[in-house]
């Protein structure tokens, strides 16, 4: 009897632990939304989703920051995704065994580099380079995109590698046996079969880029203005929140939480997208 009871208690305890992740999500959504409420009731959505950010004048528009987030993310993916998928192809198709395990470590170590360290490197080394090359202040979309490319590289590489490895060996063997070269096999067999997985990798990389804060904060500029060129400073959602949270009150503070809510919704939308792609793949298989 006692044994059964203990088993029951253990089971329930473990269940509660498992539900912590769900509880965490609910808490985060609840508290961020609660703090964001005044911005929606007092400033209103039309104000919040406008281009003008001027708290002193009662304007709390976040479109500049959304634009900043999207441009730096796209920039980071354009630079980072080909590099990452190339690395995954190298890992799965080209690298000799020893090189493969070495290179896997390299990617893992890259994933471990703290974002503040990368940001510091960007601020002290990369920004001056860009400054000298272009005569601009050096901070901005370009610098942020390069940093983000490095940040998303390990994520996309790791997931792409899994996707490529998930393609049955027999497909590749069949293609090679028919006399196709390795590149032909990769292009016509491997990549098409792994496409949904590669897509998932890029989407998750995108999520990483959207949420990245510190590394971007040190190289983005910042400036509360739309970017007009690759080297014009701007702001992203994350950097605006980071830099102004401590120095704002009232509706302004609430508007920053509204930006947090937008970030939350963006990353949740990406998760839904990933799930849709994965489900499609499962059904197709």
């Amino acid at each position, binding site marked *: 009897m006692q044994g059964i009871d203990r088993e029951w208690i253990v089971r329930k305890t473990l269940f509660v632990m498992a539900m912590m992740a769900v509880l965490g999500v609910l808490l985060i959504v609840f508290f961020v939304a609660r703090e964001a409420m005044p911005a929606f009731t007092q400033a209103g959505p039309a104000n919040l989703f406008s281009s003008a950010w*001027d*708290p*002193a004048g009662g304007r709390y528009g976040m479109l500049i920051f959304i634009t900043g987030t999207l441009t730096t993310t796209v920039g980071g993916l354009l630079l980072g995704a080909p590099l990452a998928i190339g690395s995954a192809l190298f890992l799965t198709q080209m690298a000799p065994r020893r090189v493969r395990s070495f290179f896997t470590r390299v990617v893992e170590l890259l994933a471990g580099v703290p974002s503040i360290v990368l940001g510091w490197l960007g601020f002290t080394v990369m920004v*001056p380079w860009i*400054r000298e090359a272009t*005569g601009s*202040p*050096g*901070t901005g979309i370009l610098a942020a995109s390069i940093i983000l490319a490095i940040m998303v590289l390990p994520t996309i590489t790791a997931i792409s590698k899994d996707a490529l490895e998930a393609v049955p060996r027999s497909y590749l063997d069949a293609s090679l046996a028919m006399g196709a070269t390795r590149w032909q096999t990769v292009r016509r067999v491997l990549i098409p079969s792994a496409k949904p997985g590669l897509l998932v990798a890029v989407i998750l990389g995108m999520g990483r880029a959207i949420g990245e804060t510190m590394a971007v904060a040190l190289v983005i*500029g*910042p*400036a*509360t*203005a739309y970017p*007009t060129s690759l080297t*014009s*400073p701007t702001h992203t959602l994350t950097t605006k929140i980071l*830099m*102004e*949270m*401590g*120095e*704002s*009150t*009232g509706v302004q*503070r609430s508007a920053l939480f509204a930006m947090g809510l937008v970030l939350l919704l963006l990353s949740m939308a990406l998760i839904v997208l990933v799930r849709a792609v994965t489900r499609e793949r499962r059904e197709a298989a």
Partner: protein
Amino acid sequence: MTRRKSLGIATALSLAVVLALVLGAAGCGDKGGESPAEPEKPKLSGTLNLSGSTTVLPLAQEAADMFMDENPDVTVNVQGGGSSVGISNVAEGVVDIGNASRGLKDEEKSLGLVDHEIALDVIVVIAHKDVEVDDLTADQVFGIFSGKITNWKEVGGKDAPITVVVRDEASGTREMFDEKALKKEKPKEGAIECNSNGVMRQTVSSTPNSIGYISLGYLDGSVKALKYGGVQGSKETAVNKTYPLSRYLHMFTKGEATGLAKAFIDFVLSDRFQDEVVAKEYIPMTEI
């Protein structure tokens, strides 16, 4: 079997415990304060919490250290967060003292906070070293930072576009500058924002034809300090009120300061702290 089980989770946990012990021990080792408290003073004890402006943070930390050395039974915790955080924290009673690099906003004036000015900060207009201009009138500064003047030749320099660098909106320095130098207008759109004095100095020193502003304490040879309306920003000119670009750093208490909070603020305003520490980077209250 049991021993094996402990490997995974317990390695991590014991790591935690060992670390905590090591750090605890290290913490004890650090405590040997040496300065004797004055005998006639009543012995202070308890915990004092401060939060707020990151600009005031270094000063407050220094004060806390010296105060704890004098009063070994007192613990002073200083946290950052930002001016607004400090003000709302002290109003809510979360902390005893709220630090701010700006005065109270209109909506904060009803919170029942008492202001203690602890230092005067002078803001100096700076430019890249290669800029030939030495002196700008108040109107010229207004014109440049609001975007009406865009080329150095309009103010007597060489023919080169001006790169305007300002502080971020969260900054108390920016607030003061916008109010006094920009007559509450907004700075030029697309100006580079720097989120600290250090970054401002770095940016202006490395961007040709740029102009910005920093606290006097951060001024060094890497940038050129410009006169404002013919007056060089300095301790003397700020004290005799000929130089207008300055702001106070504040500590706020809920109601009049009492007990430990009063003792701490008195210490911050004491000649010793003002002359030894505040005077290094700011203008001490003793000189005003």
